[in-house]
């Protein structure tokens, strides 16, 4: 029954395509325009998302190219506890934090800048700048995996409970309530001590255990309201499958909310992982900003005014990433607003039609 109906829709679809033929290339262009170029333009127009995107892009660049450009931090590279910006803020001389030397690149001699302990060193003579850079990729991996996992669990549980109703709803929502009552951090600590996760993505997955309940609860009530909308009812009467109703009718409505929540979840994963590393619950396998802060805290950075860089630079690295993500999510609602998006997409037909209407 359901498959017959969808055949009718396919037939209708192919008719409209016949009337207005579109090559694969054109379709790709339209898709790219609608989903990549237009959102990117809106994000650039909004001041908050522009700042946020620049910051996050900086971190992505550091995590990919930066790791390749800077050396691995080593013990006793330089004298311990050197202050930041040796040789003064304005670079100059051989002892300065920025030295430009000639190197051969592809057979040409070009000047190449080298950073020397620009953020100073810690108590074991490690370059703090190199530590910060090399801690970036694991942190990004952790935040991404944790954010996606949390959001996925929350969306599946919340949407399914809200749409299905009945016994399944009660079961899932009870599970959600219990999860909300279990304190997040203590549970994570007990699990982390027992499991001892090594890989960043495993840490990300572990951290998603405690955070999904809030999202699933609020999605549950939103889907509950959407369920009785007339167009959803129409799809149900037509006999469309549950999965296609959830995917085509329900999800697009709650997508902005989900995306903003995803950003929030990545921030939460970052903060929680830093907390766990600070408590010494997670094994120190890679360079990490939380481990750096913990090191500074327990090895005497608190005692002297001259060691502020050791303590505050990792904190600053954590906070700036959080700030960038918050700024993007603050302006995100505009990206998802169909009117704003239509105004920004130029090549796709639908965009022009809506823009003309306004």
């Amino acid at each position, binding site marked *: 029954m359901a498959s017959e109906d969808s055949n009718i829709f396919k037939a209708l679809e192919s008719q409209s395509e016949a009337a207005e033929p579109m090559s694969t290339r054109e379709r790709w262009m339209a898709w790219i325009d609608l989903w990549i170029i237009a959102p990117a333009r809106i994000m650039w127009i909004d001041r908050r998302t522009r700042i946020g995107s620049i910051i996050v892009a900086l971190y992505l660049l550091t995590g990919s190219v930066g790791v390749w450009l800077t050396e691995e931090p080593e013990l006793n590279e330089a004298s311990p506890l050197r202050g930041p910006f040796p040789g003064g803020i304005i670079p100059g001389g051989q002892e300065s934090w920025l030295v430009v030397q000639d190197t051969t690149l592809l057979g040409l001699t070009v000047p190449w800048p080298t950073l020397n302990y620009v953020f100073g060193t810690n108590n074991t003579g490690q370059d703090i700048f190199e530590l910060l850079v090399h801690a970036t990729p694991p942190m990004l991996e952790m935040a991404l995996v944790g954010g996606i996992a949390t959001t996925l669990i929350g969306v599946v549980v919340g949407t399914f409970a809200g749409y299905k109703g009945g016994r399944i709803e009660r079961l899932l929502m*009870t599970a959600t309530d219990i999860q*909300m*009552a279990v304190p997040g951090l203590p549970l994570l600590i007990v699990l982390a001590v027992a499991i001892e996760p090594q890989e960043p993505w495993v840490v990300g997955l572990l951290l998603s255990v405690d955070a999904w309940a809030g999202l699933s609860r609020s999605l549950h009530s939103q889907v509950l309201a959407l369920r009785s909308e007339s167009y959803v009812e129409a799809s149900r009467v037509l006999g469309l499958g549950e999965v296609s109703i959830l995917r085509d009718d329900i999800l697009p409505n709650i997508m902005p909310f989900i995306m903003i929540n995803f950003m929030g979840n990545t921030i939460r994963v970052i903060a929680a992982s830093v907390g766990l590393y600070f408590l010494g619950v997670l094994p120190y396998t890679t360079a990490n900003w939380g481990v750096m*802060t913990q090191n500074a805290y327990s090895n005497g950075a608190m005692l002297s005014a001259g060691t502020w860089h050791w303590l505050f630079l990792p904190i600053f690295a954590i906070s700036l990433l959080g700030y960038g993500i918050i700024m993007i999510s603050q302006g995100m609602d505009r990206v998802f607003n169909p009117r704003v998006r239509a105004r920004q997409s130029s090549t796709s037909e639908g965009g022009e039609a809506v823009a003309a209407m306004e």
Partner: protein
Amino acid sequence: MNYYLKRGLQALFTLWAVLTITFVLTRWMPGGPVDFLRAQMIAGNVGPASGEVTVQDPAGSEQFDDLARRYVNVVPSAPIHEQYFTWMKATLTGDLGRSISFSKPVEAVVVPAIPWTLFLGTVGIITSFVVRVVIGAVLAYREGSWLDFGGSTALLWIQSVPFFLIGLGLLYVTAYQWGWFPLGGRVNPDATPGINWPYVAGVLNHAALPVFSLAMASFGSGAIAMRANSIQELGKDYLRVAQLRGINLRRVTTLYVARNAILPMYTGMLIQLGYIFSGAILIETIFNYKGLGFYLFRGIQARDYPLMMAVFILITVSIVIAMFVADVTYGWVDPRVKRDSESY
């Protein structure tokens, strides 16, 4: 069904579920308490004098059963339902096992710490609630002004720093460098405990930074939410009617707008309570404040599972109770929820 009865049953059910989860974690988590005790017994660190123990796997032996019973209330070789009832009965009667690192009953370690964490938690919640309501409301009334712009930007900055790192920064600057506050601890060691000014002042002085840092845990996002709620409320028709009737402006702002804008914030407190108790672990560790969280941290450091699981249970139970209280009082603050029992 009666609103209070329903909420009470719900709380009891949650409590049971949480305790059962804790039992499952204690008994079967790989590398968890029972596994750990077995490993310790093989190594000869706990249990009878090392000469009596064979180096083979002691699981199933009477000695191991006795040891596990004493430390984590589990008898590993008994049938599952019996293990469950033994554990449940012991936990509900207040026997939380025996701490490995302090070598005394866990209750003796953690119970004296409970009031201190409650003190930090409640004062932290109240401070954060009041401050963010006031700041959010002020920003909303000055919407679009420079004050609003600067305030909102600052709030976003505060929101992006994890609260315990704010605490750490404050400790470094105000306590270690400027010497305004003590470096850690709960009380002034020279004062005699009781209601006298030196002692009370010492308690307040020691609690100031931890409370402030805990309040920061949800301050930024909360103030932003309050600002948004107030702005939404300010645009409502009933306000114009009130103004047209010539009602005093102050009365309108405090009685009408504030009350309606605060309501949604009150629900947020349910979630926040959990955050505060969880946050206490980090804050108490940083400030060396001997509350529940501090002992959880000590438990982690020494791999003292009985202590860890006991604090886990205590924090969970306090959260369930606090959520129940918040739920019940919410029905009293906003009578609408009692009628519409499905909205939650």
